[in-house]
């Protein structure tokens, strides 16, 4: 049985994308699946209720057309998760891409921060 998925678009910094890929590889998971888990946990824990601020994703290119180090990130998620993200965004009057980006940011910064070899 195939689970229907829809794309949730956002923008994320290139470095965060590298982190997400490294995390997925390390946990023997796919990028999409691991991001889905992160967003699921984000909605479950609702850290914004404890004071986490929402992050606003930048555009991939500046007005002058220069790259800002951000990339388009279209995440395929289950219909249910997409609806929950949408509903959360509507409740708080912010964009869905902001909810998605903050969720990934929250996981990278607070839940499973990266390390580098010394």
């Amino acid at each position, binding site marked *: 049985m195939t689970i229907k998925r829809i794309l949730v678009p956002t923008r994320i910094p290139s470095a965060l994308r590298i982190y997400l890929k490294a995390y997925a590889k390390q946990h023997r998971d796919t990028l999409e699946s691991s991001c889905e888990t992160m967003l699921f946990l984000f909605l479950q824990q609702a850290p914004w209720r*404890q004071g986490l601020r929402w992050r606003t994703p930048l555009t991939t290119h500046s007005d002058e057309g220069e790259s800002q180090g951000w990339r388009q990130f279209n995440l395929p998620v289950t219909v249910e998760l997409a609806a929950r993200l949408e509903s959360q965004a509507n409740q708080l009057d912010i964009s869905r891409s902001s909810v998605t980006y903050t969720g990934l940011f929250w996981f990278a910064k607070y839940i499973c921060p990266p390390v580098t070899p010394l």
Partner: protein
Amino acid sequence: MKPVNLHFLPISQIEPDPNQPRREMEAPDEMNEARTLAGLSESIRQYGILQPLRVRALDKHRFCIISGERRFKAALMANLTEVPAIIVETDQVLLEQLTENIQRKAMTPLELADAIRQLQRDGLAVRDIAKQLGLHPTQVTILSQLQTVSEEIRDAMREGLIVSPRAAYDMNRLPYRQQLRLIHEARKNHQTIGQKDVQNARRDVTDPPSPYAPTLMAKIEYNALMEILSQPIESEHYDPTADRLAIFRELETPADKEPVSVETITLSVGECRERPVNINPAIAGISSDGEGRHETREEPESSHQESVLPPHSPCPSPPLDKPPVLPVRIPSFTLKPVEFEKFADLLGEVPPPGLADPGGWLVNLIKSLARD
């Protein structure tokens, strides 16, 4: 073009090659009757041998088969007295035999492996063999490595449980017990073992990644990410500790496993005689059930947090500038009631009667002894 040296030779003067790489003349997978030896014999009886055998002269009246051993055996079954044969002079008998057989794709991987090994012993390099046989060098390497697979894998290949040489090659690198388990399951379920099955088995063997495992990044990418993550946001007062504890505890105790956390263990020692005691020191260290069952309550709050999870305070605090301090993880283990009592005895302690949490009690005992 060289003239064809065709003769009708008495069948008694022809003998099979003892080094013939094809050993199974009746391949089990050949369902078509015309392809079996009996079917071929019947065909020869009706139409004769359409394609002459290729032989080389051993002496004036003795010839050895290069290719056409099945036709020769079928001719014997059909009681022919002479067969058409082309007498050739070649010093690359094995290569010719292999080329002929590979083109028909009827040789088993093990037969190919043996033949390739023989060619290697004759001094041919993998690249040369691959070129001559029209195979990829990797295929030749894998086939030649099939010589080293265990006897169980060879048997499974002969039975048709393993078809892919790559699967057999990968399977040989699994622990022996895992190999036997895979073969047993395939035999039981009448299935073949593919590369995917071997990959999954290998995944089961290696330790699963810890949910605590931090993501390893190259220095330059790490610095770039840290720069982004550390950007201060005004009036953010978020403490992630509770979220981290909740998430990792959930990951530690998946629903399909036995309970491992101290909170879930409420068995007394007496009850434990029937059921094993699950102990997870790491979880024991972070649990708090309000009944004083773990000693980390005595530790200062800061060290308690650090022993379990790295402290993460919201930016612009410094911890994110350096790698977080990671806790030492001890994998969970299970003791039988008898082992539990022996362990406690070894440590010189007797479990108090009516002990509600044997796992937590033992962990605390070990910790207190280590501290002393």
